């Protein structure tokens, strides 16, 4: 399958065919999910209306992690098979993942202020999401840190691979660090099952967020591909330079 998709123009043909259906999925599930989440779903009996932020917060957190796994896989494909598309995909995923990580932190802070009385708590989950955000920024800076764009591909892919191994260790160490200092966890882990009235909008929003992620990544791969083509054209003898 990878060989089949390895051809950039074939990949783009498939991606373009998927593009509009994905946009449709994003808009439809997103609209229904937001409507159900903001107007229909009941307010939580403890948290009131602030609970509605989970319809943005949870999908963002999922996608921040999803993007990080994607980055690691792209890194693997690039280092092992030197596949240019894997590099483009990683470059396309990184800023999207970073924005979702930032969105997770911001929505979490907005929820934390009324609930915990503080914008920020050095809780294990918050801290590891913050570090994941920094990791994304490091990846972007490294991929674009060289005079020739392609020169950054290999180091960035290697960084993604190192992150694949190290970020779980970071997560583990942060959990360890926090549990020693704060015995009671503020976040309920796997608490009581969510009521269907809240679960339906959440699932819809998750679907919408994944489709949206795919839409953004396809758009970015397209523009990166176009950018590369322009650069090659300009560098060709008889080009503009």
């Amino acid at each position, binding site marked *: 399958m990878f060989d089949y998709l390895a051809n950039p123009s074939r990949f783009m043909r498939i991606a373009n065919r998927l593009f509009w259906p994905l946009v449709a999925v994003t808009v439809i599930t997103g609209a229904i999910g937001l409507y159900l989440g903001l107007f229909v779903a009941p307010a939580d009996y403890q948290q009131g209306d602030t609970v509605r932020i989970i319809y943005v917060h949870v999908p963002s957190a999922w996608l921040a992690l999803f993007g990080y796994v994607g980055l690691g896989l792209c890194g693997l494909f690039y280092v092992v098979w030197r596949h240019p598309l894997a590099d483009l995909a990683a470059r396309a995923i990184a800023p999207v993942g970073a924005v979702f990580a930032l969105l997770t932190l911001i929505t979490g802070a907005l929820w934390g202020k009324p609930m915990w009385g503080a914008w920020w708590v050095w809780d294990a989950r918050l801290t590891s999401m913050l570090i994941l955000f920094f990791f994304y920024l490091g990846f972007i800076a490294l991929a674009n840190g060289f005079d020739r764009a392609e020169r950054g591909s290999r*180091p960035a892919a290697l960084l993604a691979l*190192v992150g694949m191994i190290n970020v779980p260790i970071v997560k583990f160490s942060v959990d360890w660090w926090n549990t020693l200092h704060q015995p009671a966890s503020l976040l309920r882990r796997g608490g009581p099952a969510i009521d269907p009235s809240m679960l339906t909008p959440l699932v819809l929003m998750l679907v919408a967020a994944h489709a949206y992620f795919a839409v953004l990544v396809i758009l970015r791969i397209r523009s990166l591909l176009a950018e590369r083509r322009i650069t090659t054209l300009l560098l060709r003898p008889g080009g503009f330079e």
Partner: protein
Amino acid sequence: MSPFLAQVERDLMIAWQNRQDLGVMLIFFVIIIALFPLAIGANSAVLDPLGVPAIWIAALLAILAGFDRLFAQDVRDGWLDQVSLSRLGLGWYALAKAISHWLTAGLPLLIMTPLMAIMLNIPTIQWPPLLIALLIGSMGLTLLGVIGAALAEGSRRGGALMALLILPLAVPLLIFGTLASQSADGIISPHLMLLGAVFAVLLALAPLVAASALEIGETETGL
């Protein structure tokens, strides 16, 4: 002499020729530690618990600051090309770099630490766990620094970029290191073991990643 030891010896000799850099690094370490009381205030009730973390943060910054141009000279004068053609290989070369860098940065820092511990009022009973954790931690940080220096080699903003790459990945070393340094249950605490485990992972990982990154850097500069 094996090529590996020759490489270590060469780097040590270069470090000896530039021994002023070592002094700069140590002064940097001492100054960061001195900044903590200045920022926090001289109240010993607040300051004393912060002694061990202050030493760790200063060590982290001082070690990583030394990595800015670890491979730059070797790339420029063609040494790296010779290494990749020789039977030493880039992986062993990276490990040799790590060892010589630790001997010229980590070790002096470790020797300096008891003096800092006195200045920060750290009780002598805490010295053994602190020094052992710092020994393993500084070796781990050195390996991370080798990864960062190899990845960022040839980039436009070497130093700042390296810090951005390495500091998030240094979190486990910092957490387990500070916990092991302050452990109450003897020198061999669970945190020290975890610190050792992180170090072992880095020991396996760093030469491979550095070699892979330097290999591309080396072919690219030839273009």
